[in-house]
């Protein structure tokens, strides 16, 4: 394969992890939907699942409201954030009644000491599981034991574990083995040879591409995925196919 100083993806790309809006300490480089679409165009990204920075830093309820102005019927799809409080669940259930909830992202309640345990999150996880709504869980905010034990109690719930960093290297395999309905998002998987190794061990159908833009630069991991030993069919699954299946409620493996 000839390597060049310019790169375009060979397969359709649906980014599973894009943040929009400003953080207090980091204004977003994209000020509006048009700028985000232009950045996606620059990297050959067709579609993206987006959540709002306000949901990460301050309020999932306000942030979900701010997300509305970024949505685009053809290319930008909502990832609503959720936390196990009555107000948050009322908002998500209302959106669900409108037919607009195809996935949600876990807000970091652990930051204030609320663990990801059934006694704290059980009703929320039951509702998601009953309604076949997949849950994105950022690993930087998570505890490995809480994930393994709590999610094992909700075996029908499909989850996407987001942002495994090299510092999570020892978590990944036990979690993927323990949680057969968990997917791994690949925005930060940088240990040597891990993409090929994990796909060989668990199958490419367990992984989704995400950039985690604008926390991270957009094109980097796409370039990586296009320069591995994966087959074209595996690449297509990771870059879009698996995510489409998850969003259609067909993400269960067991």
């Amino acid at each position, binding site marked *: 394969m000839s390597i060049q*100083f310019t790169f375009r993806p060979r397969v359709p790309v649906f980014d599973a992890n894009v943040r929009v809006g400003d953080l207090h300490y980091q204004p977003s480089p994209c000020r509006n939907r048009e700028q985000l679409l232009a950045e996606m165009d620059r990297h050959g990204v067709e579609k993206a699942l987006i959540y709002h920075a306000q949901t990460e830093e301050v309020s999932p309820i306000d942030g979900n409201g701010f997300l509305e102005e970024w949505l685009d019927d053809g290319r930008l799809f909502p990832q609503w954030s959720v936390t196990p409080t009555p107000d948050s669940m009322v908002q998500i259930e209302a959106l669900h009644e409108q037919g607009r909830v195809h996935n949600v992202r876990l807000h970091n309640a652990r930051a204030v000491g609320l663990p990801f345990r059934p006694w704290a999150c059980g009703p929320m996880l039951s509702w998601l599981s009953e309604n076949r709504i997949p849950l994105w869980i950022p690993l930087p905010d998570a505890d490995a034991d809480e994930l393994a034990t709590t999610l094992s109690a909700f075996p029908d719930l499909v989850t996407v574990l987001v942002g495994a960093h090299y510092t999570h290297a020892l978590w990944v395999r036990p979690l993927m083995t323990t949680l057969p309905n968990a997917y791994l998002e690949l925005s930060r998987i940088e240990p040597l040879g891990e993409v090929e190794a994990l796909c060989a061990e668990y199958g490419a159908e367990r992984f989704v591409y995400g950039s985690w*833009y604008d926390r*991270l630069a957009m094109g980097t991991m796409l370039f990586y995925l296009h320069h591995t030993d994966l087959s074209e069919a595996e690449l297509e699954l990771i870059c879009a196919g698996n995510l489409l299946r998850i969003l259609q409620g067909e993400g269960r493996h067991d």
Partner: protein
Amino acid sequence: MIEEQRVIDFHGHTGRLDLYNGVDDPALILRAMDRVGIDVSCVFNIFHPDGTTGNDITARFVKDHPDRFVGFAYVSPMMAKGMVAELTRAVDELGLVAIKLYPPYTQWDLNEPIWHPIYEFADDRGLAIIFHTGTDAHSHPGLLADCAAKFPNANFVSGHAGNVAEPRAAAIRAAQDYPNIYLETCSTFRTPGVIEQLVNEAGADRVLFGSDIALMDSRPQLGKIITADISDEAKRLVCGGNAARLLGI
């Protein structure tokens, strides 16, 4: 090779760091390099406090693939007594061609006098020294300016280019002020716009591609150069032109 440009990775590790599943498996390293056209990776071993053990590991590693790897020597002022002797052995007997320093493993800021014998050694021989630089006080890249002024024949490389915004800005200022300061790119932070910032503010001729292989895979780290919004000419310099000039290879 990318479009006839030889690609040199300026930041790599030998040895193993099991907490992060980091192992210097040559087959995996070469596969990653070959997949994206990396011709040569610079490697060093910082995992042994004495320096000697790690330098021997690095030399053996390079010897097995002399056309694909070059070795850098590691020493530490925690072993101040034998520091220059080990550098002399590593360069003259083992054939290592530059120096790696890791201030977080020590109790001294990188510009303190205890480091100076290393800098004098590099200054005498015109060698490059790559430092881990970042947020911790010992490794702050702003301190490189002090070293670069005192030892003008040595080249000082800010590994990770400071990693995050404030130290990165200090690294850029130091590179702007001194022609013998370079900025190396590997970082898992991968903040949007960083490669563009380094090239636009310090100059494309002062930026070096690095990956942290084998702790990290070199492919995403090269990807952030390839997908950056900079000119192809800048990419040529960053990916290998500057490193070839700096190392004389």
